[in-house]
């Protein structure tokens, strides 16, 4: 499994891997919004966490459709599926998700505090948003794996993956943003939404790979 994780990381960072696509998209979205909204610093600070979360959500959907499609096109997927007796297929999917998250989404979580400055957020809010992104974005990768596995046989599956995954990612977005707000708005408690966010991630870490493994098992042709 360590070998698989390393291979996925190598593939993502080599030429054509596309690890940077997500973070560049994220930068582009978040950096253009202040220009569109105009010089209202208070409003920027108020909607900052939401903008960061929406940007992160959309950016982390970008590379998802390639999660299994690339393996299918070169035949690796067959061998991965056939190794199910040694490595449970759901676990293989889980490791692939983790590697995808490390390579494509983690840079974006790291970039979020810098972009928080552009959005005139206060330090506590920036910290809280980065923390919720760190805890919440893996959930998107896990749901995304299920979507990617369903759409693996379709030549232009990217849009379908986004459409399949977005509704399921909405709870993650809601609790991520509300926890980020609660950190700066005094009466609201931070912990309850944050813990629900963590629970969502843990829950989807089980459901997502299992569903994806089922879809992959029956997608072979």
């Amino acid at each position, binding site marked *: 499994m360590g070998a698989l994780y390393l*291979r996925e990381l190598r593939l993502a960072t080599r030429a054509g891997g596309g690890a940077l696509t997500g973070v560049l998209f994220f930068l582009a979205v978040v950096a253009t919004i202040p220009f569109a909204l105009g010089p209202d610093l208070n409003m920027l600070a108020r909607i900052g966490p939401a903008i960061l979360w929406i940007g992160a959500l959309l950016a982390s959907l970008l590379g998802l459709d390639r999660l299994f499609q690339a393996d299918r096109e070169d035949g690796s997927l*067959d*061998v991965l599926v*056939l190794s199910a*007796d*040694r490595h449970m297929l759901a676990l293989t999917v889980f490791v692939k998700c983790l590697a995808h998250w490390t390579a494509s989404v983690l840079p974006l979580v790291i970039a979020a505090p810098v972009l928080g400055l552009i959005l005139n957020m206060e330090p506590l809010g920036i910290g809280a948003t980065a923390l919720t992104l760190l805890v919440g974005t893996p959930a998107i990768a896990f749901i995304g794996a299920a979507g990617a596995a369903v759409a693996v046989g379709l030549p232009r599956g990217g849009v379908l993956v986004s459409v399949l995954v977005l509704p399921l990612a909405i709870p993650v977005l809601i609790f991520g943003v509300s926890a980020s707000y609660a950190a700066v708005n005094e009466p609201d408690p931070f912990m309850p939404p944050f813990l629900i966010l963590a629970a969502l991630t843990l829950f989807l870490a089980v459901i997502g790979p299992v569903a994806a493994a089922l879809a992959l098992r029956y997608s072979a042709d």
Partner: protein
Amino acid sequence: MRLIAEDLSGERGGQPVFSGVGLSLGEGEALIVTGPNGSGKSTLLRVMVGLLPAAGGSVRLEGGGEAFPTVASAAHYLGHLNAMKPALTVTENLAFWRDFRGDAAVSVGNALETVGLGAIGHLPFGYLSTGQRRRATIARLLVSRRPLWLLDEPTAGLDAQSERQFSALMAAHLAGGGMIVAATHLPLGVEGARELRMGEVGADLPSTSRGGSTREAGRGGGGPESSASSPPPPGSHPRGSPPSPQGGG
């Protein structure tokens, strides 16, 4: 250890491709699956390894013990696609499969030497020629140990010398108690291999399905439909029936 298939049939997209294939393969035996395009050679291999559900019948591995409970766990499946990443070097690709598939046999360097690619292990797989890619893929069979090799057109793209080299590799695998099922158009040069001929009527399948007439399977051969290039050992008897093309619609 025995690979046994009983009354196996396969279909693609609802169309029956072959039916009634039975075979029994013991240690040290090889089976060459031949037949025209579309006769179901690849489908047979994919059904046997479990990538496609069988439309009927069953495949099982007997005597595999705890190490090899299923056909898939005991098999190296080499398909049309090489299952290698173009962006990674040949060595990285093989090292990954060696670690992931487990049961490591020879080292990556030795495997590459064996297939004559010792000098180019550091190159990205994408830079290799078609034949070199196939040879690197054959090296994948060597880096982790599996008793059963399921090979789909293994020599596609290989030159004459590499083919001979591959024949020697297969002979060594058989001598070590391995089993091979290979689908191919070309003679593989394996001594004592039995032959399973798929779909004698496969060539005129389109016209029959258009005409809507069902042709009786087993045309052109009585008794055991498969011809054996060497007398098969008793009790292990491949019998392949040509596909029974069903009526149109």
